[in-house]
């Protein structure tokens, strides 16, 4: 098609190792089915993008992996969702433990109304770290990883809400990194940011993907093409339940989609 995406396919192909996996997963909110029969393998230490039109269940799908849907009354999951081959919806799974391993960054930057320092150490403190020296180390390391240290190192005691939107979002990423997760889920992390802040977050994501498995939901197809290794295209059926239309390496999905609906979507015919 005529639309050209700048696909950064010169990166090494993702390892074949699977980190997250869904097997015929169905999600219900009461009687409404939000997701239908989605099976997908998310590779380790790579960025997997979930794209699709509004309301197709992208965010709901992302929230399966850290069981955030649990917070919604009436939400029910059928099928398997696995991390390292362990079913996370098993009765024996400790949700708190799971969320330590699977961190999440939200659409709107949501730092706590506390100091920068306290934001970063929120997770470590909850998980029993109290040594001030150790916490200070965690703060510096996490903020450096989130490419925010140089901007905030002199105002760690100041309110996080005084930072700019892009800085706040990087702080939220640092806050997740401080818990030392294996997976980072990102729910449209740049939709509230300006283009420059967006590019900084994308750079950051690329750097983090060497160590972390990242799953990102995005509305922005250029963004998906720029940052992701794998891409999944979700769409809703007539009853509004989200289904997986196509899943594959980003370069393939964007340059040579197999499904007509994917092609229509990425060339801007709808959505």
């Amino acid at each position, binding site marked *: 098609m005529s639309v050209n995406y700048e696909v950064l396919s010169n990166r090494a192909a993702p390892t074949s190792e699977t980190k997250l996996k869904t097997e015929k997963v169905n999600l219900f909110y009461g009687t409404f089915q939000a997701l239908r029969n989605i099976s997908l393998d998310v590779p380790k230490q790579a960025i997997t993008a979930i794209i699709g039109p509004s309301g197709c269940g992208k965010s709901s799908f992302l929230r399966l992996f850290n069981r955030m849907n649990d917070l919604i009354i009436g939400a029910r999951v059928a099928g398997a969702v696995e991390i390292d081959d362990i079913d996370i919806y098993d009765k024996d799974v400790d949700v708190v433990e799971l969320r330590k391993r699977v961190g999440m960054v939200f659409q709107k930057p949501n730092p706590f109304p506390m100091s920068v320092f306290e934001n970063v150490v929120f997770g470590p403190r909850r998980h029993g770290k109290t040594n001030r020296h150790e916490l200070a180390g965690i703060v510096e390391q996490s903020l450096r990883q989130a490419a925010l240290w140089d901007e905030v190192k002199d105002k760690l005691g100041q*309110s996080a809400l005084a930072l700019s939107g892009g800085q706040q979002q990087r702080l939220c990423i640092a806050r997740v990194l401080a*818990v030392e997760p294996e997976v980072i889920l990102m729910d449209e992390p740049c939709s509230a940011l300006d283009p420059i802040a967006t590019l900084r977050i994308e750079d950051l994501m690329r750097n983090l993907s060497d160590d972390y498995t990242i799953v990102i939901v995005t509305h922005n197809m250029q963004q998906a093409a720029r940052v992701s290794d794998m891409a999944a295209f979700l769409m809703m059926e007539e009853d509004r339940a989200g289904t997986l239309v196509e899943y594959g390496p980003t370069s393939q999905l964007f340059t040579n989609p197999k499904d007509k609906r994917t092609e229509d979507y990425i060339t801007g015919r709808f959505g």
Partner: protein
Amino acid sequence: MLQRGASPATADSGLSMSLRRRWRLREKTIESWIFLNGLLAVVVLLGVLILLMREGLPVFLYTSPLKFLFGTRWYPVSEPPTFGMLTFFAATLWVTLISTAIAVPVGVGCAAYLAEVAPSKLRETVKPVVELLAGIPSVVMGLIGLLLLSPLVQSIFNLNTGLSGLTAAIMLSMMSLPIIVSVSEDALRAVSNEFREASYALGATKWETVRHVCIPGALSGIAAAIMLGVGRAIGETMTVLMVAGGALAVPLSPTEPMMPMTAAIASGIGNAVRGGLQYQALFAIGLILFLMTLSVNLIADRVLERQKRKFAR
């Protein structure tokens, strides 16, 4: 418009001009109405203060403020009369502190349960019921205290009489509970969900989320709730008059019978000659009571301001 011979454009702008003027007048009226209302509150407050000072301060021509505050003998009709209100002040302190110590943890805990844990159906039933409790007349609470609580207190603490500061404090805590629960619950529910989600996503438990995110986020509202509760406890008269025991000795323990400042004013004012020394002394107690609640509020404001700066919300 055309029939009047004016061009449509002029007629139009004339119309919008008059519309705008009327709108501005309306706006000004509303503005000044609100301003007057605000002013009224200040005027009433100052009026109360001036009245209390005019009626109460003359007693200090007779006795020194220090003697008045720290004297332990209150004999308004002996010759010469002595006015030392420490007895009443200590009683008010005991009763207020204990009732607050009971009502705050229970009230905030109840609010946290209703706001964060309880299923919405339960919350929708329990909250109105709790709020109804606030409407029970204080005389009725006094009767309940006399009938049910005081025998209980008497037997548990093995006292000569069940009428004590503790009995009054327990009744007062029940009376301030509804306000604390209701206002704190509103404050907790006003905390944005995005903070809860962030906390859960970082692996915090429900309790940790409530303790470290919801309650700090709702702190200004909770503090206001506590102030309202404390204010009620300090100012409540009828219940303490009925169940606190009314003894005229400085209470050293909460289980002693005692007479808080409000009860002292209420029981004394009937016998006081208008404008007489005792009358002035009772007004002076009222003035001190007023200053106490005022300073509680000011301190709370200061604390909240600092908290706000720290959280910079």
